[in-house]
């Protein structure tokens, strides 16, 4: 039946069958992966409630992730603040609206640019790291060794890492936002002689709870997505060194895509409640 439909499609639409079949196979494996990721996420929520709570490992992961990403997030935030202000300034000057610069930059960084750029940087830094670390542990049988020793590897490795990314990303975003705003202030100070107090007064006057709260809430989801995808890719890594590389790479690609989807959903929901 399926075969006859495909043949019919080929005749009517003049479809290149091998290519069409290839697309179908890829779609099927993508859907299977989504299903497996959903199951993995459900297992995370089941395991999180069970004892023992690996608090020591959780704190170690929080420290590692925050500490290792802080410099990168700071540098990225600073450059984003500089570039955004430098590129927007001429346009605002043309309209005589350069005094709106702190409000505009403040809102755009807090609402959107800060969270998404920090999340993308962390997806590359933390997500790939988790994928490669768990992948190499799977390939070298360290996860099996953990299980044989009576420790639940899912709880010890996955739950702690996902919780750590979920808790640390909002903090990294706050740091990234602050540094980006400072970068923007530096440009304004040099080019427009605006004082620190005046600049940040204007930024905070422009910001409302409707800007800060939804933007902060979505960063928890960003952190969760980075952790869960990185862990999923690493935990079910294919055998061999090639598998580890693939796990790290696909963790970044899949997470980046997921971040934009989450961002879209978050903005959509925010629009309903806060009327942006």
């Amino acid at each position, binding site marked *: 039946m399926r075969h006859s439909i495909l043949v019919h499609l080929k005749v009517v639409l003049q479809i290149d069958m091998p290519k069409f079949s290839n697309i179908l196979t890829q779609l099927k494996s993508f859907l299977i992966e989504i299903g497996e990721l959903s199951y993995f996420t459900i297992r995370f929520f089941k395991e999180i409630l069970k004892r023992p709570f690996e608090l020591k490992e959780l704190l170690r992961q929080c420290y590692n992730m925050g500490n290792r990403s802080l410099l990168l997030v700071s540098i990225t935030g600073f450059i984003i603040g500089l570039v955004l202000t430098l590129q927007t300034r001429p346009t605002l000057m043309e309209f005589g609206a350069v005094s709106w610069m702190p409000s505009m930059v403040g809102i755009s960084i807090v609402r959107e640019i800060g969270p998404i750029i920090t999340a993308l940087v962390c997806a590359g830094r933390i997500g790939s790291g988790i994928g490669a670390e768990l992948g190499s542990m799977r390939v070298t049988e360290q996860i099996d060794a953990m299980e044989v*020793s009576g*420790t639940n590897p899912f709880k010890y490795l996955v739950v702690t890492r996902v919780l750590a990314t979920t808790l640390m990303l909002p903090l990294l975003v706050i740091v990234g936002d602050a540094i980006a705003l400072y970068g923007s202030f530096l440009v304004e100070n040099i080019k427009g002689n605006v004082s620190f107090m005046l600049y940040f007064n204007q930024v905070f006057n422009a910001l409302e709870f409707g800007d800060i709260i939804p933007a902060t809430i979505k960063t928890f989801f960003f952190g969760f997505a980075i952790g869960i995808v990185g862990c999923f890719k690493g935990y079910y890594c294919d055998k061999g060194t090639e598998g580890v590389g693939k796990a790290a790479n696909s963790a970044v690609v899949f997470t980046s895509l997921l971040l934009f989807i989450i961002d879209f959903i978050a903005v959509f929901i925010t629009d309903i409640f806060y009327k942006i």
Partner: protein
Amino acid sequence: MKAQNNISNKNSVLEIKNLHKKFGDNHVLNGFNMQLFQGENLVVMGKSGSGKSVMIKCLVGLMEADSGSISIMHNDITKLNQKELDLLRADIGFLFQGSALYDSMTVRENLEFPLRRHTKKFGEHIDTEKLVNDALENVGLASAIDLMPSELSGGMKRRVALARTLILEPKIILYDEPTSGLDPITAKEIIILIQDIQKKYGTSSLIITHDVDCARVISDRMILLIDGIDYAVGIFSDLSTSKDPKIKAFFKQ
């Protein structure tokens, strides 16, 4: 034959009956049977890909068998829940083929790791430091306590992995290719170490290997895993002089 009779008088600590496991159309284990007796060194030999590692992983619950029964110290592991299985695992040591040391932890932390879940076994006042030092001294690596696994050679890694296996004082030790990837001298050292441990602790050992020298030195009894079944069972001298071409192929040097 005499050796076999002596062994059969002992208690069985591990028993596999009619074990089946397949991956797709590939029947790796096709009705495998095995018995490990108290205090013996049993070697299971087979070609690469014959299902030795699959069988040993089914034993500790890392893989689920399709059918058959596995009884360890009179516990059917297929009927145990996770908690009971974890408790039983404290009495089973597993030496992995590639050592499987946790590479983000020092040697000390690697050895302390199994103790986290099995403190009850040693009572409330567990002296972790002493247990770690004793286990490392048993394998002659007390000085490596603060090194990272990346700073160890292949032989040292295998010794540390053995110390980690020993720290819970298991009754049964499963060795998955203990000499693979090692030079002949280090391999010999590991074999001697396994024998010493067996004498000192009186453990029952199941050794998976395709190393004939290892099998000759270490085995009390051997099983040849061919075509997914226990094709031949006996002592080394009997099997190595067998006329069966399938058995002969293993002992050709």
